[in-house]
């Protein structure tokens, strides 16, 4: 069953069509890769799904509900979390505080219960902290909890973004170049992490340029070029597709 469905999604910026009539489905529990040369419109597709942009045409359905026009925070609380291509952590805050940002949308306490420090508010705070530590431990950063986010290595910052996204309790996790800046060892660990995400029942949609990661981690691929979908299917089939080869390598 498709958890996410894009139908004829189009986004233009002035005269430029960044995404043109793109349709694809993401099956529940699968790991899908969105690939394509630089400037193909992959990140724009992500920004459309997460509500950072509103499509000019087409529909984006998540569990059968229309997403386009919804505020980003509503989309997150409905079960889609993301990481950013250019890392967007709260650099001056501690690692655990970054993850607590993800817990926010699953918490309820407001101004008054915080001022009165009610028992339910205190319980909720403790539970959030426990959840944050569990997610940090899941990505292997629990021992760094009290460090500043800015002091983490590049690879670990990517992992911290994943932990923050996981803390929102997503059904679908969208990763924008998760292996960017990682060494081969870290990339191997990331592939294993994606496997464990799948075991947890989380659907993963990712953009990645590292083809070894894409081929190992993804079950389905969607290929974009100049905002148009040029191929989709199993990684091996896509790899052999002459249009994909042409898009990546050019023709004589």
């Amino acid at each position, binding site marked *: 069953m498709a958890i996410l469905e894009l139908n004829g999604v189009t986004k233009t910026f002035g005269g430029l069509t960044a995404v043109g009539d793109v349709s694809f489905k993401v099956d529940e529990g699968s790991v899908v890769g969105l690939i394509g040369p630089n400037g193909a419109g992959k990140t724009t597709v992500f920004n459309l799904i997460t509500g950072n942009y509103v499509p000019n045409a087409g529909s984006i359905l998540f569990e059968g509900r229309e997403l386009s026009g919804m505020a980003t925070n509503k989309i997150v609380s409905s079960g889609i979390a993301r990481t950013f291509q250019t890392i967007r*952590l709260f*650099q001056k805050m501690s690692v655990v*505080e970054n993850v607590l940002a993800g817990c926010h949308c699953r918490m309820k306490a407001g101004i008054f219960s915080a001022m009165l420090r009610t028992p339910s508010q205190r319980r909720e705070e403790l539970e*959030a902290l426990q959840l944050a530590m569990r997610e940090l431990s899941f990505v292997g950063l629990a021992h760094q909890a009290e460090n500043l986010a800015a002091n983490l290595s590049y690879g670990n910052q990517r992992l911290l973004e994943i932990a923050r996204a996981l803390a929102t309790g997503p059904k679908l996790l969208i990763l924008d170049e998760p292996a960017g800046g990682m060494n081969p060892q870290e990339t191997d660990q990331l592939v294993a992490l994606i496997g464990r995400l799948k075991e947890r029942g989380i659907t993963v949609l990712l953009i990645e340029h590292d083809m070894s990661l894409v081929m190992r981690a993804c079950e389905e691929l969607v290929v974009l070029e100049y905002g148009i979908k040029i191929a989709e299917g199993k990684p091996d089939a896509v790899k052999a597709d002459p249009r994909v080869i042409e898009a990546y390598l050019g023709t004589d």
Partner: protein
Amino acid sequence: MMTRKRGLAVIGIILFATFPLWMKYVRPDDARYWVDVINNVGLYAILALSLTVILCDAGMYNMGHAAFYAVGAYTGAILNTQLGVPILLALPVAGITAGIFSAIIARPVIHLRGDYLLIVTVGVGEILRIALINDVFGITGGPNGIFGIARPELFGFKIKRPDHFFYLIWGFAALTLFLFNRLKQSRFGRALDYLREDAVAAEGSGINTDRYRLLAFLLGATWAGMTGSLFAAKMTIISPESFSFWESVVIFMIVILGGSGNMAGVLLGTFIVIALPEVFRDFASARMLIFGLAMMVMMVFRTQGLLPPKPRKFILPKLAEEGD
């Protein structure tokens, strides 16, 4: 070491809390005057703390804070003089009125970037001041303002002398510190920090940034409104000139000078900005010069303020095992 620091803090608080009592012996001639100066410091401290929520926590440039202060003061004064509501009972109403006023103002401009928002808030402050001078609804008393505001009464005790007000104002300041500190350590406080640091990432983590920006304005303005009512009660007379653009600038200055977001810094900043000029009254004409120079030096050498904010501490729960 820690206990020694705590001991000093306790002694400091006791000395401060008994200030009106011992000042009578230290300066028998003008003790009342000095208590009144400290009362003013208290009012500005609460105002500055309320601005901190908007300016430092949520990161929104608001240089029209005196407008919310004015709405609170006038609401309290009108309720008291026209309807005979005791001023302390009118206090929460004044706060809520100022809060609603701020929400109406802020709703359409909340998404504006720093400097643009600053211009808007300056404009709002001026519009309100001129509206008050022109007696818009026929209830603000025009340029003369409102007089004859009744002294507040607490459990049958009439608060009228400066030393009485000392305990009322600083009691409220202590309550403010206590509550705001709790807020800082909560979901609400964190949400403001996230949206200030990176609004896109905050929104992408599921935080309704528009809502929290508005809530920050609402809370800051509500508190300023309540402080306005306290001011009205203390002065018994209020007029538009008490809420000029300069007032907004002073409150803004206190917060930036003291240390953006650090409450102890804000208190220190208030003493420096409000009390020090009184101490150096003899150089009346030169003090603003020295003051301006001090601000400039600060902004070059210590942009984070006298006492910069400290990172939050968490007591981390122990986990059974570390996965990798």
